[in-house]
């Protein structure tokens, strides 16, 4: 059953707090992604991971870091969250070049 699961789905944090968003997939895909979605800006790539401990910055990595210790899990960490990091975050996975991205349901983060 091809599925990408994100936790938590909804989160409210105070400015300066740390945030951990977690993502899991059951397809043994090598490549995983974190995107953020903002109205009028579309989906922007934060980080891409090609496999365990093989991560690369996307287009907007500042203020974020990632961790991938197992192929099926990919975490997004915000150290000291900022109000402009309020957004919907999507995790996705794919099996290789030219192939389909499978997205999770999204994690809505509000930083107050």
């Amino acid at each position, binding site marked *: 059953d091809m599925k990408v699961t994100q936790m938590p789905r909804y989160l409210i944090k105070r400015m300066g707090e740390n945030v951990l968003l977690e993502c899991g997939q059951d397809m043994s895909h090598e490549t995983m992604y974190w995107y953020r979605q903002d109205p009028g800006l579309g989906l922007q790539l934060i980080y891409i991971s090609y496999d365990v401990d093989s991560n690369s910055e996307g287009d907007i990595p500042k203020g974020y870091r990632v961790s991938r210790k197992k192929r099926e899990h990919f975490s997004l960490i915000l150290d000291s969250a900022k109000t402009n990091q309020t957004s919907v975050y999507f995790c996705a996975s794919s099996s290789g070049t*030219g192939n*389909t991205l499978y997205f999770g349901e999204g994690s809505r983060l509000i930083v107050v």
Partner: protein
Amino acid sequence: GDSVTQTEGLVTLTEGLPVMLNCTYQSTYSPFLFWYVQHLNEAPKLLLKSFTDNKRPEHQGFHATLHKSSSSFHLQKSSAQLSDSALYYCALRNTEGADRLTFGKGTQLIIQP
């Protein structure tokens, strides 16, 4: 670098009329083009992707043709349905791009009765 342009942020149509959502791109290498659709409160999911052999992909009544001469991959449907209301993203992955997918800003399609 790669870029995808979707000129319309919002398209509102009456049910039964044809749909055309614009997508143009810039890429150094020969790209794969995709359309993703996101219904309200759901995850984006693949609608169509381009082929390398000039076949026209079709799904759920939607089709798109990759025109390399004009760098376009417009999404079309002959007759809109209420259930087509969603956010549509055009995206590009170039063959040298190490799995990176570049998305346009999206077009919100609203179909009215």
